[in-house]
């Protein structure tokens, strides 16, 4: 059994990684750390895990965890991971970093999008972007993986086939709708129920950090430099993301060509579903039918009126948008069945 450690396991993402690993047949969780809750049962902060495990949070520091484990999930805030990771790399342990600190290849992008000078730019090249749909071969046997951002996952998976087929010619507008769990477990006025319920809150109208990843990956598949204008809204749900991407085309978009692009790239993808139907309630992707699963739901519609392709991506932001991508990448790292620990349907209704 592969030994796994989770550094910073008390947050929503850490808890989700723990939940998935506890039902994974090939791994054993040897340490789930939390400074704040060290010694407490994990189900104290992850009540859904009561009756599933009596594991307690450990007080191990990251290096201690590395000494016990074959692979470490680093679920610590942005800016902290890039201080811990270099020391972890020295121990030789494999790392799945859930933060943004090693997602971008270009160190200058960190100055531009995250406003800080990356302390370990030389390590950036060693991390594989943890999106199996685009980087499966590199993930096989990889040592270091940077797990993508949640909104980036929905946008990239839904747009990549078009980019690869050269159908993304101009700027792409990504209009994202996200649930509250994306903002984590720390309470504030903005998460106060009376102020958060029922909003359609524009929390990042421009310059969202995930733009950098979306551009990086769309450029990777298309070989061209694509520019993305993103606008993020917090809407009235806990889990879930829908990205609505508006791709302006120079000529009338051809449905057949678009299907060809999607089918060509995602024919055998275990976790990509085409949600396209002429009838019924779910004619296009909707987080409502993805929540609880590792599926990335993809759909599109053509608008011959203004030469536009409207592309939809729906995921559970904590699973495919975080812990699911992490476990899926880990499976590839160790040569497990890629669906191991992830092979469960969504919940409906939820």
């Amino acid at each position, binding site marked *: 059994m592969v030994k796994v450690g989770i550094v910073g396991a008390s947050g929503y993402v850490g808890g989700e990684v723990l939940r998935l690993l506890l039902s994974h047949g090939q791994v054993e969780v040897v340490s789930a750390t939390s400074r704040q809750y060290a010694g407490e049962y994990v189900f104290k902060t992850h009540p859904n895990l009561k009756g599933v495990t009596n594991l307690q949070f450990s007080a191990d520091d990251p290096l201690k965890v590395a000494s016990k484990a074959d692979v470490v999930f680093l679920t610590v805030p942005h800016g902290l991971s890039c201080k811990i990771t270099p020391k972890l790399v020295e121990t030789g342990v494999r790392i799945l970093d859930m933060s943004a600190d090693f997602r971008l290849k270009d160190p200058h992008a960190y100055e531009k999008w995250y406003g800080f000078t990356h302390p370990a730019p030389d390590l950036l090249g060693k991390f594989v972007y943890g999106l199996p749909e685009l980087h499966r071969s590199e993930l096989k046997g990889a040592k270091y993986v940077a797990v993508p951002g949640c909104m980036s996952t929905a946008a990239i998976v839904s747009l990549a086939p078009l980019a690869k087929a050269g159908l993304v010619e101009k700027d792409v507008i990504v209009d994202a709708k*996200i649930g509250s769990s*994306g*903002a*984590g477990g*720390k309470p504030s006025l*903005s998460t106060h129920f009376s102020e958060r319920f029922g909003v359609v809150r524009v929390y*990042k109208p421009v310059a969202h950090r995930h733009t950098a990843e979306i551009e990086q990956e769309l450029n990777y598949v298309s070989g061209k430099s694509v520019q993305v204008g993103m606008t993020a809204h917090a809407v009235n749900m806990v889990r879930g993301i829908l990205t609505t991407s508006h791709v302006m085309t120079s000529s009338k978009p051809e449905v057949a060509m678009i299907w060809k692009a999607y089918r060509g790239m995602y024919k055998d993808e275990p976790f990509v579903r085409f949600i396209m139907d002429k009838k019924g309630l779910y004619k296009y992707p909707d987080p409502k039918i993805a929540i609880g699963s590792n599926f990335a739901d993809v759909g599109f519609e053509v608008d011959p009126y203004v030469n536009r392709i409207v592309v939809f991506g729906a995921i559970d932001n904590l699973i495919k948008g975080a812990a699911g991508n992490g476990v899926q990448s880990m499976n590839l790292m160790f040569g497990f069945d890629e669906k191991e620990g992830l092979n469960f349907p969504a919940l409906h209704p939820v």
Partner: protein
Amino acid sequence: MKTTCEVCSGAIEVPNDAIKGEIVSCPDCGTEYEVIEVKEGGVSLKPAEEVGEDWGE
């Protein structure tokens, strides 16, 4: 005292007893100004530096 916002040319109402260093903000666009000088019937302002807010993910 009335003055005009540099960003959106909205009307800003500065209290008559405003003192140096006081912060006033434009009701229309939220830009904040620091009172740097108060002379009879007039006041001069300079934009107060913005403190970024972290909205989480």
